[in-house]
């Protein structure tokens, strides 16, 4: 029996698979690092697409093609005439869809999850390499299918990324039957990719940690991805079910969401947000985990309150499943239920507050290195604070009656998703790029990119709070059509100009990214003098990662430990013979 089990282990571990070479490496490789890079490059490509869509829709808001000018002409002289209202609806729908499903999720989970999990837990590959590679191809297919909507009759889906029924499910109402169907099909396939990734990650993290690496010695990045995987595993299939119902309603005459035939439009919202709220945390938890690691490395300090951080993330994971109704306070959902969701939503703000205080605690007393990665991580904390605070307004049911579906919410989620997730992604790219490619990114270009991004980001998104409080609805193609919004138009134009600045600043990043592949300074094994296991191997690590499975003796954040010659202790560094079993942190193994 034991020999059978052992053979399975070899089969499953991926040590058994051959290293692919040449161009085949990028198609058939089962190596988690290659798959992670495939995710990275693909989603950076989608980032350009999503950004271009954003700039187009911002242009329309500043200079609407439907604006009635003082002389009676229709169309602002500076407008782009090809942006009609329907196309505008498609623009923001696809901008959100691309950014959520094809950029932020795959960057955080697909790229960094795949690349870092096996390295950080000291194993050779994911539990199921073949499923891992399949997941990438499903992801790519889902993106192409969704974007194909732009080239079919009726155009791409234009019902918003939330695709509320019955607008999305009755062709006569939306005029984009084909595009909407492609959208739902893409979401379904994207969901399959997510689920494949999720059970792979969970299996890997539970079963394949290096000896000595108890759960409470896992870096927060791994913890965050572990919890995220559970959220994906349990939330995404519900969206898949809803997406299937949408396709059936739209194409095969079923009536799940069609009130004319007994269906329930609010059912779509419940199913969507049952997925949609965990999804919010799916997009921020890995960012929190990676930003924590970056803050610790460059403050040369252990994470402040490691266990509090872990329990806060677990709490977020649980609570994330019982707050979905706060997206529906004004949908007409049962009003007492709304009140209950209001309370649970306020409660879920607590773990986020705990995390913020612990981040501050982490940089307290540190010896802070202001690398580009660190600057981005600090920006992540600051922007997450603003995004979190604006969330409290929406969580208050009465205030929600006023700010619901205004630009205030648009400002809020961009502060969390761009200010939070994207800054954390930049921090992570600057931190782990040397590991991935063996070369450093250029710090000067990086700092210019960071400064421009930070400034333009705030110039772009902070005024949206004002526009929203001023009463501007989201998802309208032409604010000048409304008398009460015309006084806000200068801000809208200012936001658009800032957005253009923000968009073009990213070209510096792309230039830096691709230039450094060839011309960056060689990185060496551990350029940041960090402690976790990925820094013990070559950059980039070879096939199979570890020549010998490492044994872990320390927690993940042993920085500035007194009495050591260096200011960091690698996780696999054997304890000095005389140190014995002194402090708990140095015990070779402790219960997880």
């Amino acid at each position, binding site marked *: 029996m034991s020999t059978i089990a052992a053979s399975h282990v070899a089969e499953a571990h991926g040590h058994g698979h051959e290293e692919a070479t040449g161009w085949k490496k990028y198609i058939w490789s089962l190596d988690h690092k290659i798959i992670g890079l495939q995710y990275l490059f693909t989603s950076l490509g989608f980032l350009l697409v999503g950004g271009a869509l954003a700039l187009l829709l911002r242009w329309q808001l500043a200079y609407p093609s439907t604006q*009635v*000018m003082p002389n009676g002409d229709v169309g*602002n002289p*500076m407008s782009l005439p090809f942006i009609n*209202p*329907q196309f505008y609806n498609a623009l923001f729908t696809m901008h959100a869809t691309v950014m959520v499903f094809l950029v932020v999720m795959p960057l955080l989970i697909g790229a960094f999850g795949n690349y870092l999990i096996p390295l950080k837990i000291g194993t050779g590959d994911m539990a199921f390499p073949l499923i891992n590679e399949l997941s990438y191809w499903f992801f790519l297919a889902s993106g192409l299918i969704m974007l194909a909507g732009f080239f079919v009759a009726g155009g791409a889906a234009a019902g*918003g990324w939330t695709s*509320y029924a019955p*607008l999305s499910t009755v062709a006569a*109402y*939306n005029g984009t039957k084909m595009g909407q169907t492609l959208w739902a099909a893409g979401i379904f396939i994207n969901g399959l990719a997510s689920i494949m990734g999720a059970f792979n990650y969970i299996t890997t993290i539970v079963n394949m940690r290096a000896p000595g690496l108890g759960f409470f010695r896992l870096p927060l990045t791994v913890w965050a991805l572990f919890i995220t995987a559970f959220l994906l595993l349990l939330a995404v299939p519900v969206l898949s079910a809803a997406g299937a119902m949408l396709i059936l309603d739209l194409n095969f005459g079923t009536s799940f969401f069609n*009130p004319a035939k007994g*269906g*329930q*439009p609010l059912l779509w919202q419940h199913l969507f947000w049952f997925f949609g709220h965990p999804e919010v945390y799916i997009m921020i938890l890995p960012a929190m985990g990676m930003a924590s690691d970056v803050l610790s490395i460059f403050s*040369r*300090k*252990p994470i*402040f*309150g490691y266990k*509090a951080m872990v329990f806060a993330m677990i709490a977020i994971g649980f609570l994330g499943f019982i707050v979905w109704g706060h997206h529906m306070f*004004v949908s007409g959902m049962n*009003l007492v239920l*709304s*009140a209950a969701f*209001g*309370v649970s939503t306020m*409660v879920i*703000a607590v773990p986020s*507050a*705990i995390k913020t*205080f612990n981040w501050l*605690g982490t*940089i307290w*007393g*540190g*010896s*802070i*290195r202001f690398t580009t990665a660190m600057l981005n991580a600090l920006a992540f904390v600051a922007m997450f604070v603003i995004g979190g605070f604006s969330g409290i*307004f929406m*969580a*208050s*049911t009465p*205030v929600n*009656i*006023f700010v619901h*579906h*205004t630009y205030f919410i648009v400002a809020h989620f961009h502060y969390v998703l761009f200010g939070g997730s994207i800054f954390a992604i930049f921090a992570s790219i600057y931190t782990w790029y040397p590991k991935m490619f063996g070369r450093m990114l250029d710090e000067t270009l990086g700092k210019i990119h960071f400064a421009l991004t930070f400034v333009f980001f705030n110039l772009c998104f902070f005024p949206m709070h*004002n526009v929203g*409080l*001023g*009463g501007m609805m989201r998802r309208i193609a*032409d604010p000048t*059509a409304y008398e*009460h919004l015309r*006084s*806000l*138009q*200068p801000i809208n134009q200012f936001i658009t100009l800032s957005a253009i600045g923000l968009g073009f600043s990213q070209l510096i990043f792309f230039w830096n990214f691709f230039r450094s592949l060839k011309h960056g300074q060689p990185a060496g094994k551990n350029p940041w003098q960090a402690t976790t296991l990925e820094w013990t191997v070559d950059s980039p690590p070879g096939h199979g990662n570890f020549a010998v499975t490492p044994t872990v003796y320390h927690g993940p954040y042993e920085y500035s*430990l007194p009495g050591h010659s260096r200011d960091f202790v690698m996780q696999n560094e054997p304890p000095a013979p005389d140190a014995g079993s002194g402090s708990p942190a140095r015990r070779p193994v402790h219960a997880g």
Partner: protein
Amino acid sequence: MPSSLLLSTLSPLQAEIRQTSVWWLPRNVNMFGHEIDFIFYVILWITGITAVAVFSVMIYFIVKYRARPGVPAIHSHGNSALEVIWTTIPVFIFLALAIYGNEQWTQMRLRTPPADALPVAVVGEQFGWNVRYPGPDGKLAKMTASKVSKDNPFGIDPQDPDGRDDFTTYGELVFPVGRPVRLYLSSKDVIHAFYVPEFRLYQDMVPGRVYDFVWFKAEATGHFQLACNQLCGQGHYKMFGKLSVVPEPEYEAWAKGKAPATTAGSEANSSTPVAVAGR
């Protein structure tokens, strides 16, 4: 981009609307708006002060603990007392906010509207507003969501005696100042939303349902815009209506001038669709 170019796209006409509070909360004319604004400012103060504190601490740490040669970082894994403190304080703040917010929510949404409230039915459609007012009897015909159809936007029974003297408009709402108004909201096709920022009021209008829990009392006269705030298709961006709050006698005069609806649905076709005019 020169700022003159920016300003040139704004006509004088556009500039004269909304003279006050042009970049901030619009004025409030709804009795419930005071509570909403109050909670808004409470949260703004709490979050504002906390944000200033957090950013000050952060900047102080960033400056004070920048890497300097010979000054090592402190080795600390945390502090349990601090964790307890900064868990407990937010719990109380957030719970207080939730409890207070729920109190107001209950007042606004769960309290029975006063008996003398003026009932007004508003049924959205792509892309306009069917509005139905009670006649002299002060009663609206009963609306049944399942009966809403193309020809019967309000889903009423044509034989309903309460509906005989009702009158309808398309995209035009007039409310008497100081009198409670109870809305009956529904939709003919997709989800629309009844949104008037000056009323601090948003409510989705879902097809297949009639929502009767929204009520308010306008405290000042004026002219406002009713906007659809739930994406409803390609004409969504200009699905707006006229909304006026006028003194009671003026309202009575306006209502008298409207002919009663003869059948259930002819009104939608006979009046001018305001919202889609000019497309």
